[in-house]
């Protein structure tokens, strides 16, 4: 056994609820496990317990025993456990604390007190595995998100732990970097390392794990092979099920396909290909006509160019956003998405070209004036919270702009479930609650356009469902929603207009189905069509063949 939990209960100091509640668990060497569960279900605490940070670092109340590689974690300090189990944390910025990537990888080896030759050998091994070859001399904090993730992984790999833990490693990665990380993890598995991965979005990694454990309120709610776990009633535990499994459930079909081929085979076996594809195509058609592109424009961008330190970031950007649309802005990390959305309220100004809001040129209008029309919900709600109470936090915008509307704000408190929290300090809220506060704060000034920056990153299925509901409500109020996201499944379901950005240019602009059909643009932007779209295409192809 590489890992054993025996009746482990734990709560953080100063909290009432148990983060882990009577947990029993064993893991064999070389086994790879996906740990899933809603926010606050104890996933991160479990990871910390595996390397002794809980209870040694966090203190708190602890019962039961954890054995890692045969060592009782309560009897050994973290610096004796870290060579047996290595954890890659969620926040990559905070775990890179050396001058160069090379010294980052060496740090743990120096802690082990290894001989010079051994250090060099492991350094080469880890840098090759984590694909860090040409980054070794660079300072970590200047790297991209995907690169930082690989450095963090490499620095742990160098220790050659027998158990490797990754806490939500895919959260901030674009589809290509996600694939890259999956490739590295497959190699680790083949080297016989046991893996524990924490993730809400099951489809990211489900093909590569032997086992899924579902946590709920600090307890194990389900444990078994991926297929066994998916067969159980787990939709209440805040998991984002693989898209085709979800589709089959919605349509009341048997079977749990993970790939398009599985789905077609399943349909053939059940003799349902014709009725199923008819229903699916009808739904797709309904979705595409539900929005007409005749509403008036709210944003018009004409030939926008922007450069940073002499390097072009945006080139000849041209698009229109209409009233009541839901628009997804997709593309690789570092391709200019954030730069582009910062133009929408004047945080950045185009070096050439024009941006019009409601038909008016924005170039000379201050941010504070434009923010009446354009609201932002940033990825990290902690970037804006500063008021003593939730109520004041939400009212900050309207007060700064002198546009307070009591009945609208009451409606928002209600919509975002904040009524019972109004007098609380925003800092004491959970991350999901903070996110809802920042939504309400952005909407409080009644903007015509609202920009959501990676709204689904790191959020569980419960929040995703809420978010989908909010988006529908916003559209009903004739507000335009812009989603900046890597989550194409979400973008395909909840946006009717896609803008694809690659190398600072918009290379595709239209309804999601039309964009996904443009395979050249998709490849150029490092994107892959959603499984649902692929399935529809495959079914269409089969129909044609028959005819």
């Amino acid at each position: 056994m590489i890992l054993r939990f025996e009746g482990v209960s734990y709560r953080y100091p100063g909290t009432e609820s148990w983060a882990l509640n009577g947990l029993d668990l064993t893991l064999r060497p070389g086994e790879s496990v996906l740990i899933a569960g809603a926010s606050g279900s104890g996933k991160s605490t479990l990871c910390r317990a595996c390397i002794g940070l809980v209870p040694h670092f966090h203190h708190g109340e602890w019962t039961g025993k954890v054995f890692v590689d045969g060592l009782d974690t309560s009897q050994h300090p973290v610096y004796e456990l870290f060579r047996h189990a290595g954890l890659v944390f969620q926040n990559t910025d905070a775990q890179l604390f050396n001058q160069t990537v090379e010294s980052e990888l060496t740090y743990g080896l120096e802690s082990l007190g290894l001989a010079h030759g051994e250090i060099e050998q492991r350094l080469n091994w880890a840098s090759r595995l984590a694909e860090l070859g040409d980054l070794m001399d660079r300072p970590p904090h200047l790297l991209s998100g995907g690169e930082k993730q690989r450095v963090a992984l490499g620095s742990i790999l160098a220790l050659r732990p027998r158990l490797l833990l990754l806490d939500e490693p895919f959260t901030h990665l674009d589809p290509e970097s996600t694939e890259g990380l999956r490739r590295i993890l497959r190699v680790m598995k083949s080297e016989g390392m046991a893996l524990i991965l924490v993730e809400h979005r099951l489809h990211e990694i489900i093909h590569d794990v032997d086992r899924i454990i579902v946590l709920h309120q600090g307890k194990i709610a389900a444990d078994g092979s991926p297929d066994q776990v998916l067969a159980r009633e787990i939709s209440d535990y805040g998991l984002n099920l693989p898209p085709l499994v979800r589709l089959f459930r919605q349509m009341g079909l048997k079977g749990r396909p993970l790939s398009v081929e599985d789905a077609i085979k399943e349909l053939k076996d059940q003799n349902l290909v014709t009725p199923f594809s008819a229903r699916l195509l009808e739904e797709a058609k309904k979705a595409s006509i539900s929005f007409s592109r005749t509403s008036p424009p709210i944003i018009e961008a004409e030939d926008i160019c922007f450069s940073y330190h002499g390097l072009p970031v945006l080139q000849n950007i041209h698009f229109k956003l209409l009233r009541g649309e839901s628009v997804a802005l997709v593309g690789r990390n570092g391709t200019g998405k954030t730069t582009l959305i910062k133009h929408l309220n004047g945080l950045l100004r185009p070096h050439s070209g024009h941006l019009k809001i409601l038909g008016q040129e924005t170039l000379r209008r201050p941010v504070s004036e434009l923010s009446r029309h354009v609201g932002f919900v940033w990825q990290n709600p902690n970037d804006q919270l500063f008021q003593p109470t939730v109520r004041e936090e939400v009212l900050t915008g309207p007060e700064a702009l002198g546009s307070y509307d009591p009945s609208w704000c009451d409606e928002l408190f209600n919509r975002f479930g904040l009524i019972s929290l109004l007098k609380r300090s925003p800092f004491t809220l959970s991350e999901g609650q903070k996110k809802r506060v920042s939504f309400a704060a952005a909407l409080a000034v009644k903007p015509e356009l609202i920009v959501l920056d990676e709204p689904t990153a790191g959020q569980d299925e419960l929040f995703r469902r809420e978010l989908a509901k909010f988006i529908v409500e916003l559209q009903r109020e004739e507000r335009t929603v812009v989603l900046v996201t890597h989550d194409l499944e979400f973008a395909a379901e909840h946006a009717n207009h896609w803008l694809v950005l690659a190398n600072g240019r918009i290379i595709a602009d239209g309804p999601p189905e039309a964009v996904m059909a443009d395979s050249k643009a998709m490849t150029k932007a490092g994107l892959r069509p959603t499984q649902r779209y692929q399935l529809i295409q495959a079914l269409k192809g089969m129909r044609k063949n028959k005819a």
Partner: protein
Amino acid sequence: MAFVATILLMIFHQWTSLTASLGILMMVVLLLHLGLPWLNFLKGLGFACFTFFIIAWLAFDLLTAVVSTLRLLAIGTVFFLFFQTTPPEALSNALLKMGVPYPFAFVLSASMQFVPVLVRRLANIRDAQRARGIPIEGGLSLLTHLPVLAGPLLIQAFKFADELAEAMEARGFGIPGRRFRHEPRFRWMDWMAVGISVVVLVMAFWSPYR
């Protein structure tokens, strides 16, 4: 050497000798191709020098103001050179060699790493607050809206510090018997630098042109 230069600059009290030393420092700056970063650095220091000059002029007299401003400028440049040419890791290695305990030396080099990270966070916070209609346009409005920026930054910094501590523990920070890949050593170059510094310092004390 930086420390010796600082002492030297403190004991010079004629504007001629100060101008001369500033000239020498400028030559070093140019020799090391640090002209552009130095100008950037001057943007920050210039404002401080200017206010310092005005205050000293009003409080004392013009000569004192000129001398002390020149001195401030020169000392600033010395430290600019020091931090430009000494990577934080070398500095912490030197401290280790001098017998400073590892955690202290580490904190010194690590804290310098996180300045750019926190600056980037601050930029995000400023954007987020401006996007809500809070008019932070720079200059004085930065001061009046301090809590708007400082609140989120402090909270994030505390959280960041906690996460950093965890990550360090998880890579064996507290372990006794750490062994360095590149053992810091005192080479003849370093001895030379120390020697020259001492000689110059002694000469300066006896020199009539202070």
